[in-house]
């Protein structure tokens, strides 16, 4: 099959004679070149920008991880000193959580939610652009600390007293706290935007219970972000005021209660765990049915177990604090709640397995990563249940057993899910298929590497090797099977294999970009609406908005039941697409590009610099934000009809956004 060339049946006009806003700046109109990216409000471009930036930070965080493992590869490691080691694990976790998994999931959400619900863009396109720039500038801001006296070094959960100026005199934690505020603003605006999009912008007939699971899981995630981000905002503000303005919120000597930080952090931090994993659950819930040639087993159960995880996720935060002396009642309550949250998660694993059961399995790279997630996440989930038993957790707290657990759920779970999504959706986004052979190598090296790296950490942790230990010595390594030195070296070798695995993915991207196979219209025989468009989709996504009458709408347009109750193909993907094109809307005015999102976002790091170094700089940043805000408020989101060339006078213009 080859991609079918179609003359554009729909006119997508771009504004040509832009009216100015605030007198100074005229609306950007470029449709090509860097300007078409920097000032874009198109959810697909922004989705690509989110994902590309996240991938860059994945490499940064990965290099930090490799340095950590090199330091621990041999006794008396000399790669990093203690101080640098502290910065390295702090920034590794911060980068992976806030600058890779979250924005990567946000990138996929940006790109695919509107396509999956049959919309032409998100509810607030400019807020979407602002969110991306705030994330990018926040991420850069946090990492600038490397060059300005040292990065944050208190661990990613930044407990007091390590977060105080006595133990961390550099500006690293200041950069960290303010940078996370900026990325937090991005998450919050993203949550408002995507929830509104999902609730309000669905195509006719797209009831909530007909939405693809990926959209459902993202909806749950965005609600979690909406309510979790403000809590960490408070905590970070208190920390900044303590470090920069002399307050003593977490200073025990001044009578403060350091548990306040722990509570605020984990009330955010535990929902955050589900913020990281649920998007990947959504991805594989799309991938598994497609490559099993079966509908998802128990769709409502997958939806409601996801929602249940979202609710119960708020009642388990203190299981991170079992060792802090909360008292028997709290410990018992949080222990039981934590065991309870394993149930909806288990429901999902059962549903995925039953989806595979009896299916015509097709082991593409996307499918391999999805199955990898089921297996590896289950291992991590089981070790998670052992933490819920408080007496056992007291033994495991702050050991490598914890490190093993969260890498199985986050690497084996979240990251494998994202990789599954890369292989599945790559042809949709770029019109080319990633190399499957390299994908297989990519998968197996990552599986082997990840199990070699994180598997032995269970042993290390149960033997008592503390987390964040920067060096080990031969004398204290022990003997035989429990020789900690052997397993540390083993894990470090594993991390190198893992690195090669990830590297193969990057090579795959390059090879695919150079001479990858052009993807057919429907390469996987897929089921959901995002495949009912061209590869890559047109700027306006759908020539005409489809009316939805089924869960798995695209599948039901291609296949219908025959007299014997068998599903038989009645139409090809090309024919389905042709029907949409034949009813194309004549004039579609998409939301227009704008300078203001990047202008406002640019003000934020300036304010943050000012908070650290000198207040007048912060005022400059404030002025930039205010200026951008007024420009934004005065400029219409979609250019007026008479800005278009030729001016559109007909009544049948469809306005989007």
């Amino acid at each position, binding site marked *: 099959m080859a991609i079918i060339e179609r003359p554009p049946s729909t006119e997508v006009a771009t504004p040509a004679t832009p009216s100015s806003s605030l007198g100074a700046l005229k609306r950007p109109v470029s449709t090509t070149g860097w300007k078409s990216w920097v000032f874009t409000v198109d959810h697909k471009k922004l989705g690509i920008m989110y994902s590309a930036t996240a991938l860059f930070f994945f490499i940064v965080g990965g290099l930090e991880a490799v340095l950590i493992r090199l330091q621990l590869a041999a006794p008396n490691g000399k790669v990093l000193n203690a101080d640098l080691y502290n910065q390295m694990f702090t920034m590794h976790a911060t980068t992976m959580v806030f600058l890779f998994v979250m924005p990567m999931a946000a990138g996929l959400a940006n790109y695919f939610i509107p396509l999956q619900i049959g919309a032409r863009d998100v*509810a*607030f396109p*400019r*807020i979407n652009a*602002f969110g991306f720039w705030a994330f990018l500038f926040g991420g850069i801001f946090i990492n600038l600390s490397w060059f300005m006296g040292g990065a944050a070094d208190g661990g990613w959960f930044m407990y007091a007293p390590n977060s105080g100026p006595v133990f961390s005199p550099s500006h690293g934690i200041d950069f960290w706290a303010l940078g996370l*505020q900026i990325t937090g*603003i991005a998450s*919050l*605006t993203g*949550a*408002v*935007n995507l929830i*509104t999009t999902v*609730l*309000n*912008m*669905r195509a006719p007939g*797209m009831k909530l219970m007909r939405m693809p699971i990926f959209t459902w899981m993202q909806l749950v995630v965005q609600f979690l972000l*909406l*309510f*979790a981000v*403000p*809590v960490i*905002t*408070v905590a970070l*503000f*208190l920390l900044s*005021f303590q470090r920069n303005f*002399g*307050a*003593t*919120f977490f200073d025990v000597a*001044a*009578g*403060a*209660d350091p548990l306040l930080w722990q509570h*605020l952090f984990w*009330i955010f931090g535990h929902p955050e765990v589900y913020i990281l994993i649920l998007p990947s659950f959504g991805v594989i819930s799309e991938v598994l049915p497609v490559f099993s040639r079966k509908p998802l087993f128990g769709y409502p159960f997958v939806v409601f177990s996801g929602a249940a995880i979202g609710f119960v996720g708020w009642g388990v935060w203190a299981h991170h604090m079992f060792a802090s002396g909360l008292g028997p009642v709290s410990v018992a309550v949080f222990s039981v709640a934590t065991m309870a949250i394993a149930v909806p998660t288990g429901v999902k694993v059962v549903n995925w397995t039953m989806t595979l059961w009896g299916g015509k399995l097709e082991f593409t790279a996307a499918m391999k990563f999805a199955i990898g997630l089921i297996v590896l996440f289950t291992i991590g989930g089981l070790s998670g249940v052992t933490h819920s038993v408080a007496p056992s957790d007291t033994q495991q707290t702050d050991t490598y057993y914890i490190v093993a657990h969260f890498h199985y759920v986050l690497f084996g779970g979240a990251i494998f899910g994202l990789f599954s999504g890369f292989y599945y959706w790559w042809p949709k986004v770029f019109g080319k298929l990633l190399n499957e052979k390299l994908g297989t190598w990519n998968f197996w090296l990552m599986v082997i590497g990840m199990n070699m790296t994180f598997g032995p950490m269970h042993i290390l942790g149960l033997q008592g090797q503390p987390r964040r230990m920067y060096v080990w010595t031969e004398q204290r390594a022990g003997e035989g099977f429990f020789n900690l030195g052997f397993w540390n070296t083993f894990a470090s070798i594993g991390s190198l294999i893992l690195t090669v695995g990830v590297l193969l993915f990057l090579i795959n991207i390059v090879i695919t970009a150079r001479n990858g196979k052009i993807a057919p219209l429907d390469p996987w025989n897929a089921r959901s609406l995002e495949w009912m468009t061209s590869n890559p989709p047109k700027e306006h996504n759908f020539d005409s908005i489809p009316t939805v009458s089924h869960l798995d709408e695209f599948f039901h347009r291609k296949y219908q039941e025959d007299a014997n109750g068998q599903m038989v193909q009645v139409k090809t993907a090309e024919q389905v697409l042709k029907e949409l094109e034949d009813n194309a809307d004549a004039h579609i005015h998409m939301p227009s590009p704008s300078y203001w999102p990047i202008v*406002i976002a640019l*003000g*934020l790091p300036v*304010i943050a610099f000012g908070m650290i170094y000198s207040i007048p700089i*912060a005022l400059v*940043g*404030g002025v930039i*934000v*205010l200026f951008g*805000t*007024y420009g*934004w*408020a*005065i400029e*219409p*989101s*979609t250019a*007026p009809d008479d800005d278009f060339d030729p001016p559109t006078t007909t009544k049948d213009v*469809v*306005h*989007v*956004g």
Partner: protein
Amino acid sequence: MWFTLAEHAVVTTEEHDTEHGDHHTSTGLSNNKLGMWLFLGSECLLFGGLISTYMLYRGRVGEGPRPSQIFDIPFTSVSSFVLLMSSLTMVLAVSAAHKGDDRNTNLWITITALLGATFVGGQVYEFTAFYNEGLGFSTSLFSSSFYVLTGFHGVHVTVGIIMLMSIVGIMKRSKTPGSKAETVEMIGLYWHFVDVVWIIIFTLIYLVPA
């Protein structure tokens, strides 16, 4: 604190969308209004965190003044009353906006902004008085958490005033009367929310004995 300003600004200024946008949404609620409700839901947790911090630390005065020594409850009651009355004038503004009566909308918005400014002025006066009585920002855990909580609320009121003044300006530029009714209504939602939060803060800080 300027961050929150940016957030408000960003969330509340998409109003132009509906000028051209498709009014048929899946829920029937406009995107802007739904977005504002979501944002306010998020704000509940922001103030929840700040209020929790204050409640934890309000008795920890160290060497500094205790709450009962410095609070001037009659004064704060009056400024609280002024703020609550501004919710009434905000309702009148929204009502006038829906009738397409731009003149009265402007009038009531201006009065709302003035009442809000009176409240903020009262807060500045109060902070100055407390400072002169020895309650600095870093004097004690009580003082820090008090200033952070009431300060965040004050910033919210100030942002509200800026939005009110701005919408008056934007309405003067607009050619069709009543076209900004939804924006006025959204600012109204925000304004009422900030007032309700103050009722909680005022009760917990000033009325419930530590």
